[in-house]
């Protein structure tokens, strides 16, 4: 295995594109090193992107924030601007693993590891986050929900790297929230995760919404009908009932020891409703 620490994204892309063997990007390493040490992968090349300055930063952009792919969860959680603008994304990131894991794990790593149960992904999808991808043929932007296709699989081509995530500016009275169900209080993998982002008008009517669910399908789902249930309402009981029903209807989960199919479908509705209620309280104050 070769270990490389390029100083620019262009040289990182070139290393990955030119490698004939198995090449992996190393950001926080909290998934990659487990697979490496467990013998599940045998890389010929590992490209550490943490020496690329632009990928280590959180920068203000157009009223929102651009999060570099090598920014660890702990650093994101310490950023007052991101916490204020996108509290749901930050609370999702802060549910990933332990404090030790959060010292290393990155949001982009969580995205590209392509687990349907990744905590930060439903929150990012609800937030309408955009991934900036750099590859041999240049730069492109892609909504985060179009990155993962199934467990461990992404739409990224050979040599492509997600450089950063853009969390955009928000109109007034906007907020988001993320909730997950696990059988313990900490340090577990989501049985169901739900991210909700809403914008209210001056009268408190919901004018925009996005709802995303994790761990209930082969990838994180953006659930249009669940968002439609909220738009035009004041998130009253009837709208929340419709939201919960639409969220449950979108699920096609696995059935395993951590949660039965029936349980996951039910809980997806419950969590979507609760996350929407939290987002509503936050939006009223923002």
């Amino acid at each position: 295995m070769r270990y490389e620490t390029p100083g620019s994204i262009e040289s990182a892309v070139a290393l990955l594109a030119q490698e004939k063997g198995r090449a992996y990007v190393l950001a926080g390493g909290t998934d990659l090193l487990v697979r490496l040490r467990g013998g599940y992968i045998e890389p010929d090349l590992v490209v550490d992107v943490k020496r690329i300055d632009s990928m280590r930063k959180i920068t203000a952009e157009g009223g929102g924030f651009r999060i570099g792919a090598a920014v660890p969860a702990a650093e994101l959680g310490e950023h007052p601007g991101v916490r204020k603008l996108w509290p749901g994304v930050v609370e999702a990131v802060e549910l990933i693993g332990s404090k030790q894991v959060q010292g290393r794990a990155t949001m982009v790593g969580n995205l590209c590891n392509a687990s349907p149960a990744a905590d930060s992904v439903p929150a990012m999808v609800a937030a309408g986050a955009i991934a900036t991808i750099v590859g041999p043929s240049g730069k492109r932007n892609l909504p985060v929900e179009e990155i993962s296709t199934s467990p461990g699989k992404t739409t990224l081509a050979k040599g492509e790297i997600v450089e950063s995530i853009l969390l955009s500016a928000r109109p007034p009275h906007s907020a988001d929230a993320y909730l997950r169900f696990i059988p313990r209080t900490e340090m577990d993998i989501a049985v169901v995760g739900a991210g909700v982002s809403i914008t209210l008008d001056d009268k408190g009517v919901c004018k925009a919404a996005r709802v995303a669910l994790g761990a209930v399908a082969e990838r994180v789902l953006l659930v249009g009908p669940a968002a439609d249930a909220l738009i035009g309402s004041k998130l009253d009981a009837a709208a929340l009932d419709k939201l919960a029903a639409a969220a449950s209807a979108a699920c096609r989960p696995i059935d395993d020891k951590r949660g039965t199919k029936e349980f996951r479908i039910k809980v997806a509705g419950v969590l979507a409703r609760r996350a929407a209620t939290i987002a509503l309280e936050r939006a009223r104050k923002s």
Partner: protein
Amino acid sequence: MSQVHVTAKINGDTTEYLCEADETLLDVLRNRLGLTGAKEGCGTGDCGACSVTLDGRLVCSCLVLGAEANGRDVRTIEGMAHGETLHPLQRKFLEHAALQCGICTPGFLVAAKALLDKNPDPTETEIRYWLAGNLCRCTGYDKIVRAVQDAAAEMRKG
């Protein structure tokens, strides 16, 4: 496989070593540098027995490559006491008998110090959540939490 040459600050001392590209920082500390305080419990980032700080950030050294430490500042349990003088956390762990077999103890101490460096007056809930990534199979966690609270109180008095 060619080895990687690394220069890192370890507990304040500039240290040079050669390691394999796929070797973890934990294995480098234990097998090449003789710093055997950090332990391998799980090797997957679940147990926290290998906790160290990397540029001041609490991490599992089993999930860091030795090569990644080049130019970085690594702090381990071996750097916690000043000579013969134990850190207040170490003293309080002894006073409260907050350990039995001791395998998890270096990780708990490094993690608890990282918490108190950031938050000198944590609530019990904050301590328990912060230490959720450190597993102990002997004592239960109560004495550990009491020891951290007691050390924090003493350190706040200065």
